[in-house]
């Protein structure tokens, strides 16, 4: 009969098993949020390695041979490269880290190996945070640091591992004291802007706008209920009809798809601010592209290295792969290019001659019928309004090589990109420089936080035409078909029966409050924690009353705060490690000893009370009676069951009366 008996184990191997279990718990905690992103084979490998290692400790198996470990490590490395194509960047880096951790686990036998393992675990926490700093990651981080640190405590212990509760409590106390230091460092540690070395961005395809737009692209994007960015206004909030958030501007058209021009637009632009500005702060969710969303037309912004292109986009120096916050001042009524640069005129008039022939013909007809550009534009918009055009999220697919013709004369059902595309094509064909602007329109104003939340479902596309003497003018053909889209929201503009994601939830009254409350919390988290950067830091110091805050001021304040926190810790520790209060008998006896010491008779460390009393009586025969009765009373109180309150009172009387 075969039985699976757990062998008797030595004390040392039992300790090792406890250490291993702790390490396994820490590694699993740190790894858990990585799991959904990892290839399955890494998850399986990790499970196998942890399981094997625990079994090895339980049954006393030996470590795998060096050769086998090298083969496994090489295979793991190759696997990561095969899965990701690189070992660079946060995602491939974390995968490699986990594979390395698995390999380390196989050879973890000594104390030092456990320490290395825990250091890897700390890095796993970091890589998860770099990947996705959502609100839940804060409690997860605290938990993971706590478990990992407790595991480290057990790993470095030379004697038997501490009981789990004791170890956990100890580490929790330490973390409580580390918290003020962390907060001080977080707020005051000088933040140096910008990346030091180029890192590949996240490979995950995130939802958001794109460099190109073909029919149906924005409609697809609008199905996502994800937050794109939030805006917090200072002073007046522009009305819904003015909430056009500018994203990529598309110039090149091949008959179906609009694209950003190559090379990218230059920095040079001519903008003359006029009218009332709008001041706001944008907290932009990462989208892995360069553009920063801003209201038309951004004039001032606080973002290191960001610049404005000649088509008024705001671009950041590196892809936005972290939550990013920036302040912008926009002038909605600013005067744009008075004269159009020839290169741009050519770019924004270009049309493929052989595509969409019916549209080109229509444009020629309209051009000859209307003498001014204004009249021409109005005629096109009127056409959208009068004829049976339908605004819908589910437009029929345009399969032909002339999609604009198909839309204008055949299906007549479309989303914003269909209208913008058709309108811009008509304008160009009629000789008016025109381009497509994509971005977001509208947003939901949260009354609790007074913030505007803009979601992917608010994605929009519109047109811009250049008119002599006026500059670039925004024309939104969607507004002609579905005015409610602009004035209210997407849900209000859609025909009956079509739904925007999340619309059902938005309709429930109680849930509406809850949702907005959560939204406010999330927005505050984004703005105050994730978006905290160099600008915020200087703002805070100015608010604290510093005239010209710089890094030196920061360092001084930081030093003071950390010193105070550590001084408090020292005090608390000294209090915690204080000796217990002596009992009243002991206190009285100590006083008696003090008096004798003053009189020249000192108790030696090795003398018991009776021995000492004998010697003291010999040295001071005149006090012999008093010394004897005090000592006897003390011994009775301290070493026998007799005594009690009356005896204590007697001892007190005697000692107070005793003056050598």
């Amino acid at each position, binding site marked *: 009969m075969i039985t699976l008996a757990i062998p008797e184990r030595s004390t040392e191997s039992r300790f090792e098993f406890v250490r291993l279990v702790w390490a396994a718990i820490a590694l699993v905690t740190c790894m858990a949020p990585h799991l959904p992103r990892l290839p399955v084979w890494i998850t399986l490998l990790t499970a196998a390695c942890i399981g094997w290692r625990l079994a090895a400790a339980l049954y006393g198996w030996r470590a795998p041979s060096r050769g086998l470990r090298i083969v496994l490590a090489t295979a793991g490395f190759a696997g990561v490269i095969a899965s990701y194509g690189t070992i660079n960047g946060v995602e491939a880096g974390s995968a490699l880290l986990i594979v390395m951790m698995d390999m380390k686990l196989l050879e973890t036998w000594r104390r030092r190996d456990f320490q290395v393992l825990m250091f890897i675990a700390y890095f796993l926490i*970091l890589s998860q945070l770099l990947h996705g700093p959502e609100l839940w990651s804060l409690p997860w981080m605290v938990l993971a640091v706590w478990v990992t640190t407790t595991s480290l405590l057990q790993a470095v212990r030379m004697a038997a591992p501490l009981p789990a509760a004791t170890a956990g409590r100890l580490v929790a106390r330490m973390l409580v004291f580390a918290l003020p230091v962390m907060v001080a460092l977080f707020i005051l540690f000088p933040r140096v802007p910008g990346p030091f070395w180029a890192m590949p961005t996240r490979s995950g395809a995130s939802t958001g706008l794109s460099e190109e737009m073909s029919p149906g692209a924005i409609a697809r994007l609008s199905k996502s209920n994800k937050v794109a960015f939030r805006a917090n206004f200072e002073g007046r909030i522009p009305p819904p009809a003015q909430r056009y958030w500018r994203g990529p501007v598309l110039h090149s058209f091949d008959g179906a798809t609009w694209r950003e021009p190559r090379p990218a637009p230059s920095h040079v632009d001519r903008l003359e601010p006029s009218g009332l500005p709008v001041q706001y702060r944008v907290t932009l969710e990462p989208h892995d592209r360069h553009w920063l969303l801003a209201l038309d037309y951004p004039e001032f912004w606080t973002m290191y290295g960001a610049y404005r292109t000649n088509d008024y986009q705001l671009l950041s120096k590196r892809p936005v792969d972290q939550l990013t916050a920036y302040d912008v001042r926009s002038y909605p009524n600013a005067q744009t290019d008075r004269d159009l640069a020839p290169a741009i005129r050519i770019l924004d008039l270009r049309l493929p001659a052989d595509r969409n022939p019916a549209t080109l013909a229509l444009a020629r007809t309209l051009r000859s019928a209307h003498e001014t550009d204004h009249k021409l534009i109005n005629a096109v918009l009127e056409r959208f309004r009068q004829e049976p055009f339908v605004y819908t999220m589910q437009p029929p697919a345009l399969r032909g090589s002339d999609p604009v013709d198909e839309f204008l004369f055949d299906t007549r059902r479309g989303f914003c990109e269909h209208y913008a595309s058709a309108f811009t094509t008509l304008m160009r064909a009629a000789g008016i420089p025109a381009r497509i602007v994509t971005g977001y329109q509208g947003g939901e104003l949260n009354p609790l936080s007074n913030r505007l939340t803009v979601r992917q479902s608010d994605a929009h596309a519109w047109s811009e035409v250049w008119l002599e003497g006026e500059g670039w003018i925004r024309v939104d053909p969607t507004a002609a078909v579905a005015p409610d889209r602009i004035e209210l929201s997407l849900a209000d503009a859609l025909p009956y029966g079509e739904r925007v994601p999340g619309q059902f939830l938005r309709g429930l009254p109680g849930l509406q409050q809850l949702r907005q409350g959560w939204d406010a919390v999330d927005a505050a988290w984004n703005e105050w924690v994730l978006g905290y950067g160099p600008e915020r830091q200087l703002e805070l110091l100015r608010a604290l009353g510093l005239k010209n805050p710089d890094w030196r001021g920061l360092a001084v304040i930081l030093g003071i705060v950390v010193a105070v926190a550590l001084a408090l810790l020292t005090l608390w520790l000294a209090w915690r490690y204080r000796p217990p209060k002596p009992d009243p008998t002991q206190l009285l006896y100590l006083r008696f000893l003090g008096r004798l010491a003053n009189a020249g008779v000192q108790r030696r460390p090795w003398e018991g009370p009776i021995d000492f009393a004998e010697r003291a009586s010999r040295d001071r025969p005149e006090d012999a009676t008093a010394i004897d009765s005090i000592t006897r009373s003390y011994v009775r109180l301290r070493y026998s069951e007799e005594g009690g309150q009356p005896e204590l009172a007697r001892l007190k009387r005697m000692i107070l009366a005793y003056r050598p």
Partner: protein
Amino acid sequence: MRQLVARALHPTLFLRDQLREWARRRQGTDQDPVTIHRRRTYILPTWLGIGFGLLIFAMLLASMNYNNSMGFALTFALAGLGLVTMHWCHQNMTGLVVRGIRLEPVFAGTQPVLEVSLENPSNTERYELVVACEAIEAAPIDLPPGDTQSVRVKLPARKRGHLRIYQVGVRTRFPFGLFRCWIWLHPNLTGIVYPAVSPRGAEPPADETEIEGANDANEGAEDFAGLRNFRAGDSPRRVAWKAMARGGGELLVKHFAGADVATRWLSWADTPEKDVEQRLSRLCRWVIDAHGRGQAYGLRLPGTEFTPAVGSRHRHRCLSALATFPETARRPTGGQQ
């Protein structure tokens, strides 16, 4: 000598010796007991601690590069934890009471044991305290509140003679081994290493003489006077084994009151060996045997003489004289008559 030179030329060892000397001059000799004041605790990061610092630095760079606030939060939390750990490690040592540092006499060839008692007078447990002496570390101990524990450090075996302990260290790397906090104690402590004991062999010549009054200050071996508890140094011959078996395991010793004992002289001149060390070893054996039999004995060495007596104190006196006997003694021809 060569070792001394090598030590002086070795950069880290030299520096460490200098530091120790400095600490010794600064603190002076310690009385018993010593309460560890924070002024005499030293603390430095360990290699693991330096590694932890590098880890934090790497995390800081990554957080800056990605401009990631949560990354900063983690980095600073670990940095804060490191600083807290440093204070915790320091406090784990401060206030500790070290008492009763002593060295039991041993025979050459066996390992002297340094005994140190550590007392935790606080309300809170202290962890991972390690006593070290001459680069030898004892097993770490945890001290619950108010507890005292004795730690034994086995030192390397020595030649006979005085054994001077210059420095005793107490260390801790609690909680995470990122910092090492230590103290140096300089007790006024000299132990003694008796000569190595010869194997049983030549017996001392049987020139027994009756010498009156040769007795232990306290006890004789004449008239049975009762039983008392065993004390260190009592001859096993006097242990009342039967009484012990009856009395439930406590070691009892027969107590005699009396005056005259049969005595014997153990003399340098009578040893069969001619080499100084071998002679001392032989005398050592004789002393032990005589003590073990409960006999009174005297010791004659060139230049010194111990009149016959019994008891552990006498034994210690005789063995110490053997231990400190000069290596190059003049060769007395017939011993001292």
